[in-house]
């Protein structure tokens, strides 16, 4: 192992020494501008156009922030898509258009996310179940309950709550501000607190962290709770944006796969212990630029799905191909 890291350290300089997030952001900018110029839609490169682009990053960015924690600690969360749908449905069911219910509904959604995160974390950290299977299963359970009960749980969010998704402050859309604030918070936790440092330690080397006296299980549990909270906020945002939740908004948005993809594109290592929030934001910006470019070129929905699949694979491959060993 140490031989590998040594030889990687001696790798040639140049492009690869640049911080990953910067490279990704530059790539996103080039793609977006090129698409706008080629299709002649240069009005996209303006303040409203860019603000629209940023608005596209919000839902996936929120999920990605949470997913970053799960992946950093060496786990993964595939239940986020189902949780997003559940939160959106729960929020619109509880509100039924009544502004007085906004706060209780948000609290109920956060409570749901806490429970799901704790269940995920418990299954992974304390029971030792493979995180892919554990979170896939909790996602399936949520999705099934939603699909079975949806007919009884229809509703819509309060207009005041909906307004939050469309208002701006100093010309910046509120949801974008929300993402920025939460990203800053996540960055602070990971980079500046003891908890963050311990998360990296647990993700990088669980056995070593355990020997150093860290309660590894607690950190895995906490990371899963944070991942669920990220999905919860994303679900609330989508409910506000779309006026009411449906049981399929999470699945149709492919938030599970895409959140993992943006985290990995941003340079966070799937095996844990290395990476950060800035990379995730860069990853989501790249995806939003690609999406916007597809729209400018008028790519049809099915073909877009094909391209997305190919891009996810290619994006992960760019980093993974340098691995020396074999992957699962």
């Amino acid at each position: 192992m140490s031989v590998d890291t040594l030889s990687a350290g001696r790798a040639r300089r140049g492009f690869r020494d640049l911080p990953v997030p910067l490279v990704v952001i530059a790539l996103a900018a080039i793609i977006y501008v090129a698409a706008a110029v080629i299709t002649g839609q240069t009005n996209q490169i303006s303040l409203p156009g860019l603000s629209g682009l940023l608005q596209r990053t919000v839902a996936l960015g929120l999920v990605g922030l949470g997913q970053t924690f799960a992946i950093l600690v060496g786990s993964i969360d595939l239940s986020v898509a189902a949780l997003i749908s559940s939160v959106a449905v729960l929020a619109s069911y509880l509100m039924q258009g009544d502004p007085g219910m906004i706060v209780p509904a948000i609290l109920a959604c956060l409570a749901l996310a806490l429970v799901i995160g704790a269940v995920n974390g418990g299954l992974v950290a304390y029971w030792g179940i493979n995180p892919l299977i554990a979170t896939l299963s909790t996602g399936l359970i949520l999705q099934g309950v939603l699909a079975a009960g949806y007919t009884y749980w229809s509703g819509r969010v309060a207009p005041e709550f909906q307004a939050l998704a469309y208002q701006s402050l100093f010309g910046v859309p509120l949801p974008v501000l929300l993402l920025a604030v939460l990203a800053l918070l996540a960055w602070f936790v990971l980079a500046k607190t003891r908890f963050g440092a311990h998360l990296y330690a647990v993700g990088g080397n669980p056995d070593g962290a355990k020997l150093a006296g860290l309660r590894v299980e607690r950190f895995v549990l906490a990371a899963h709770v944070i991942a669920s909270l990220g999905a919860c906020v994303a679900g609330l945002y989508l409910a506000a944006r779309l006026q009411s939740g449906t049981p399929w908004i999470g699945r149709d948005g492919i938030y599970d796969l895409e959140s993992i993809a943006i985290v990995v594109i941003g340079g966070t290592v799937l095996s844990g212990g290395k990476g950060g929030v800035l990379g995730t934001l860069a990853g989501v910006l790249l995806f939003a630029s690609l999406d916007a470019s597809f729209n400018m070129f008028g790519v049809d929905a099915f073909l877009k799905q094909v391209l997305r699949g190919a891009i996810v694979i290619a994006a992960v491959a760019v980093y993974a191909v340098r691995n020396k060993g074999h992957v699962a």
Partner: protein
Amino acid sequence: MTAIPDTARPARRIPLRGLNFAIAIFVVLYAGIAVLQPNYLEAALFMNFLRRAAPLAILACGQLYVILSGGFDLSMGAVVTLVVLAASMLIGGDPEMSWPVIGALYAMGLAVGLANGAIVAFLKVPSIIATLGTMLLVNGLALAWSGGAPRGDLPDNFRNLGRLVLRDVPLVGTLPVAVIILAVATLLMGWGLHRTAYGRRLLAVGDNPRAAELAGVPVKPTRISAFVVSALAAVTAGILIGGFSGVSVNAGRGLELQAIAACVIGGAQLLGGRGSVVGALFGALSLFALFTLLNLLGLPQALRDSLQGVILIAAVGASVLRHRRST
């Protein structure tokens, strides 16, 4: 180190243990069905049960190859959808075209399997991401090709593969063609896994790829081959599904997870190293028996997903506990 000459013995014994577990579950569940609907004990209805469970069982055996090699194949359901849509588009109701098109379908499966394998083995993309990506890709291609609304009918000679029941067969009375295909497929895959050097290499790769490599196993070709087997199994299942449920854009949705669940129920260890075709077969039959049972009990179809989640957690959790005790 001294244990190396003995490896053949535990490998022979472990499939037996997986076999007992899944068979027991299946017998219990089928007994439950028989209590609610006694005529399920008749040979004809049992054969019909096997016929409907055949695609899932074949998928599970294919998935087992990938699981044993240390990965997951999440693109199976998308391949089933592609097969069903492509068959209806290419055949266009012309019985003459059925056999050439089936050849073309297997070629498509081969391509998907090779792509999955190459992405995992050469590009080092973790299989769960790689196959989720190809799942999106293949699904998107199938939908784009059919425009989201498939045209064309499947002719009878194609549909008969999944639908036809041979009557007046000695011993069993009725014998669906799908059951014959199931028997041939499982025997073939069981032979490949448990009776050949290739099967041993696959298990070695799943157990510890680095060690297998040092021992001279061609790791990359072995892993690629597992994805190819899985994709070809998905094509076979797709042909059967097209035969008895007809053409739909949702033909394969969720099947990849059912196949994984079946393998886990059958005692396969995730991320490789342990498992058997008999286990996967009876895992699939158990899962299907459970679905049938719940149908008879009148549980909403949508809760199937939830139940599958519970089963996955229970099956993997149980194997974790068993291992914790033994080590």
